[in-house]
């Protein structure tokens, strides 16, 4: 057995005693990761059809499901506005839909305290399908005339993608709470 100087060491070999997570990282990482996810789909490929999942929304839902109280209910307002700047939707579309999603998720949080992977995925499936369909309708009100069948592949890809986004968010959550700032 090894006792390296009586300092508790975690699996990654870092010292844990006398250390706290950085408050900036602990508070800011969820916001930053959602914002990066909003920009990312446009960068990955120049698409001629809507096929990328709305990663910003998926990350937003995943953070709210993993840590319900971490981002306030009104987080959909600034984050949705940021998403609207890049998504191509009329501005206000994500502000409205993300705020509604946050309220719905909070309500489900209260009614359904015992959850597992499957129930969380089912809840997310409902939200994602509603989000993509409503986004189409809002875009159509604002001047487009896209038929409904165009978004079917995107819905399927998004639903399958959600657990993966959840894993990445969980990784980010562990990274967020790494205690590396020394208390003096």
């Amino acid at each position, binding site marked *: 057995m090894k006792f390296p100087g009586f300092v508790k060491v975690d699996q990654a070999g870092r010292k844990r005693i006398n250390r706290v997570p950085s408050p900036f990282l602990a508070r800011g990482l969820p916001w930053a990761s959602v914002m990066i996810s909003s*920009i990312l*789909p*446009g*960068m*990955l*490929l*120049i*698409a*001629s*059809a*809507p*096929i*990328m*999942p*709305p*990663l*910003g929304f998926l990350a937003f839902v995943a953070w709210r499901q993993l840590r319900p109280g971490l981002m*306030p*209910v*009104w987080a*959909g*307002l600034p984050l*949705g*506005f940021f998403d*609207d*700047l*890049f*998504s*191509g*939707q*009329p*501005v*206000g*579309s*994500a*502000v*409205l*839909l993300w*705020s*509604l999603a*946050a*309220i719905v998720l*909070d309500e489900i949080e*209260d009614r359904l*305290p*015992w959850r597992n992977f499957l129930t969380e995925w089912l809840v997310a499936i409902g939200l994602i399908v509603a989000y993509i369909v409503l*986004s189409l309708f*809002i*875009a*159509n*009100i*604002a*001047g*487009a*005339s*896209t*038929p409904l069948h*165009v*978004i079917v592949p*995107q819905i399927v890809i998004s639903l399958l993608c959600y657990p993966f986004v959840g894993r990445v968010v969980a990784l980010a959550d562990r990274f967020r709470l790494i205690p590396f700032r020394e208390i003096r």
Partner: protein
Amino acid sequence: MAPPLNRRSGHSRRAQYSSFFNYAAGVAGALLGVVLLIVSIFGPTVFSGPRAIAADVVSPVGGGAARTRAAGQDIFSTISGYFKAGASHARLERELAVAKVRLAEAAAVREENARLKGLLGIARSDPPAVAVTRMTSSTAASTRRFATIGAGRTSGVEKGMPVRSTMGLVGRVLEAGITSSRVLLVTDTESLVPVRRARDGIPAFAQGLGDGTIRIRLINLGINPLKKGDILVTSGSGGLYRPGVPIAMITTLLRDGGIARVLGDPSHADFVVVEQSWAPEPPVVPENRDEPTSIEAEDTQDEAPTP
């Protein structure tokens, strides 16, 4: 742990108020979203400023992403090239034989063209391109088809300029930022391009369908003369798009037109060219034409429907 059935957040007034205000702010956010939506639906250009700034800020990252994307596509095409080498070699040889004949024909036509133009005294040359740039990003998660290109007002790009790749028309500039611009792709459902069949000039409109294809609507109804594989080029009517730029190839026939595949598929275009907006020559008015008299002008005013 399951939360208690009593959903009050404890006896603390402060906790109760903060929970209440949190929800109130959430609802207010949704309402503000509705207001923003109404503003952006009735004034589509209201938010173009913030959007352009956001695109300008992200544009350098997009340039890097574009290079990575191109490299990634190269890797995939190299790998798939090994599997298809034999078949494509044979096909290319056949095409080369045909192309050599066509090249000779084209040279003859060019010579004849130059001679005829010389006879007519026309020396029309195309104006130089405004900018050659990469596409930095697109709205891949939305049903709208916008893309961002890495050239803006500093490069001389202005609203309305057509954007094309080496293969064909890609779209037109919708909003010009400082170092980046937003392009409405021809596959967007709001994009409407006047086109004609390359072979004989049958006029039609090309409207995007939002799924990467284009709906071709013929202007003259009747028997549909289109065939699969027909190439459509811009007709230049109404200005904006220079005539003769290839745009799409018919893949499916419908009663009043067809569905066409885009030739200048932006996902395969490494570089795009921003061109000057094209304006048709003003019609030549014969000098001896009678000016409308004042009586005629009054007549037309009388005939105009009163609101």
